């Protein structure tokens, strides 16, 4: 870490840890309800738990992206953040809006629009908040010494994410229109502009961790985000098959969304080959594990499991079943949760000047969260496929099918416990690092981590 204001990122990441924990608690409430233990039904019915679970997910990811941007942009632009006070205000207001929304969900204060449950009044506050964030980032880049590709891709990813939030705020009387534009937010985020953000973070981490020449890494970044948009934009059609839109979307959505895994495959190959070429010499091995893990797991969760149900002939049976939940979990985990955890793992030693590189907690956190998540994906997968065959293909009664699946929900919850144990380790490790300190004159933070990483950086000339 070279600039004082980069420390702001720490608090965004701390917010991530807090919101992630809450998200998991609400996940368990649903997991137990699916096992048949719905004792909380009167206070926290399933729809409340679900809205809280998915919205906290989105908020902690946005908080993670913002933290990453506040760390990456000064480093790439070679200057302090512009108006760091705004960044602090922005963090506090983001948390206030998020927490208000989540509390409101317990009192029927929401909109029944999956993933966009935040009530309209709070939407405007979100917009103001994000504009503030973009302003700080933009001014820092504008006044900076250099404008790198990584910084530009990150900025435009964030800007486009903000713009794409707006179609989700139009009110329609007709539910078919409402659903059409809801996907401009949900799909074009996760299978479009968020991939830009992820790609930029990946490229930043690879530059730092492998020491490979920036020009090479950034060239491939363009190719990958090129594939993302080439397939992802028209791939939106895979949500238009059966929701009232015209039949040509079956063709358009089918062909283009089937190409979407290429971008994720590209990401995985790119990360692995760069790490191999770079020889993995950076002492922060854990950060590299998360980075490469992210590239691989996003291909499995988003690319492979997404492809598994994206063709119209398959989707007509799996649409709106637990098969979707299976894919949703591993995709969000592999692509976005892991890239943020990679960023945090990289940033902590840099910021605090402590080199806990060999911590057993960090290593165990990586493996238990991932194995737990794969187990959850498996449980959702078994439930989803059974549901498709029994309910959709054989015409059995919905509730009867669901009740016969309760035993697999036990498996889901057991795997979730494993993954939660990993998350607890990760957070323990996060706390063990302590608070961030100001950077020293020599470049890195004071202490062993700073100088080891500093020496690495200067020897590799990044």
């Amino acid at each position, binding site marked *: 870490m070279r600039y004082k204001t980069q420390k702001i990122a720490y608090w965004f990441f701390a917010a991530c840890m807090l919101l992630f924990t809450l998200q998991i608690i609400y996940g368990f409430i649903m997991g137990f*309800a699916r096992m048949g233990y719905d004792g909380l039904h009167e206070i926290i019915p399933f*729809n409340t738990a*679900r809205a809280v679970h998915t919205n906290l997910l989105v908020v902690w990811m946005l908080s993670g992206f913002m933290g990453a941007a506040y760390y990456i942009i000064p480093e790439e632009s070679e200057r302090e953040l512009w108006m760091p006070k705004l960044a602090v205000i922005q963090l506090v207001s983001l948390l206030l809006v998020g927490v208000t929304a989540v509390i409101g969900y317990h009192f029927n204060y929401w*909109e029944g629009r999956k993933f966009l449950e935040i009530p309209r009044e709070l939407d405007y506050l979100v917009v103001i908040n994000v504009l503030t964030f973009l302003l700080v980032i933009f001014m820092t880049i504008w006044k900076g010494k250099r404008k790198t590709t990584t910084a530009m891709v990150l900025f435009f990813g964030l800007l486009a994410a903000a713009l794409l939030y707006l179609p989700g705020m139009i009110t329609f009387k007709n539910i078919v*229109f409402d659903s059409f534009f809801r996907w401009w937010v949900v799909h074009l985020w996760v299978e479009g502009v968020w991939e830009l953000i992820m790609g930029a973070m990946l490229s930043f981490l690879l530059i730092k961790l492998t020491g490979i020449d920036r020009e090479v890494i950034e060239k491939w970044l363009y190719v990958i985000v090129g594939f993302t*948009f080439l397939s992802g*934009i028209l791939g939106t059609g895979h949500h238009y098959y059966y*929701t009232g839109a*015209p039949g040509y979307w079956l063709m358009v959505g089918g062909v283009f969304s089937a190409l979407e895994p290429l971008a994720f495959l590209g990401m995985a190959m790119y990360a692995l080959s760069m790490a191999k070429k770079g020889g993995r010499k950076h002492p922060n091995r854990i950060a590299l594990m998360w980075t490469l893990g992210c590239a691989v797991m996003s291909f499995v969760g988003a690319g492979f499991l997404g492809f598994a149900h994206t063709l119209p002939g398959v989707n007509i049976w799996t649409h709106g079943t637990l098969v979707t939940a299976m894919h949703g979990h591993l995709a969000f985990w592999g692509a976005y949760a892991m890239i943020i955890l990679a960023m945090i793992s990289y940033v902590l030693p840099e910021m605090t000047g402590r080199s806990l590189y060999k911590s057993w907690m960090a290593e165990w956190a990586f493996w238990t969260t991932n194995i737990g998540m794969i187990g959850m994906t498996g449980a959702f997968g078994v439930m989803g496929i059974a549901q498709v065959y029994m309910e959709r293909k054989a015409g059995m009664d919905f509730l009867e099918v669901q009740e016969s699946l309760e035993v697999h929900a036990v498996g889901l919850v057991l795997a979730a416990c494993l993954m939660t144990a990993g998350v607890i380790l990760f957070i323990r490790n996060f706390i063990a690092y302590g608070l961030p300190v100001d950077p020293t004159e020599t470049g890195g933070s004071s202490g062993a981590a700073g100088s080891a990483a500093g020496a690495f950086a200067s020897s590799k000339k990044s």
Partner: protein
Amino acid sequence: MLTKSAAKAFFLGGTALCAVAFLLLTLDTLAELPKRSHVEDMTDQVVRGHVIWNKNNCMGCHTLMGEGAYYAPELTKVVERRGEPWMDTFLQDPEAFYPGRRKMIKYDIFDNEAVGAEVAAGNRADVIAFFKWVGNIDTNGFPAKPDLVPVGVASNVDPRIMARAPVYFQTVCAGCHSVGGKGGNVGPSLDGVSARFDADYLRKWVSDPQAVKPGTTMPTLGLKGENLDEIVEYLGSL
């Protein structure tokens, strides 16, 4: 070898091309959606039903056109599947139809006692109208009809017994009771019920089960007049 500026051109060009194609298709879709969703049938009542759907986040448990949560039944064709009278009764007290099973919220807005019979009936009619309208949207064939035929249909089923039942019986009572092997299993099968009870008892029971057996889980359906006569006559024939 690919240069960085060529890579950048690939990114910008590809994105622009796809974005334009997407916008053109969007324009066409927006022109088609009113026809495909039959806006001409989208009455105020339907819009009010949509507002109820939206305000209470029913999508947080159910799917509609395959969108939403996977905890409760898919509702696109619910009117076709259940019929209006069944839905009207169900919404008043969802648990009565599925005692001890996965729970839906018992909404005050649908409950005669909580908000008054007229308002509650109006709210129920609104959501039912909304579901009816959704059921007619052209969804390119979703949800598909089951294509694996279950083997081994029970042999003692005589569907004719159900077929000659009054409509109210087929849509509401059959949600909980079976006759001739068809119908629900919340209450006992009504085959041979006339041998167990006489017509007077059945009339009293059906019009107000609580009065006959306080605390029973069979709901009071408020049947009167001709409807009641018809049902009692049918029960007498079983």
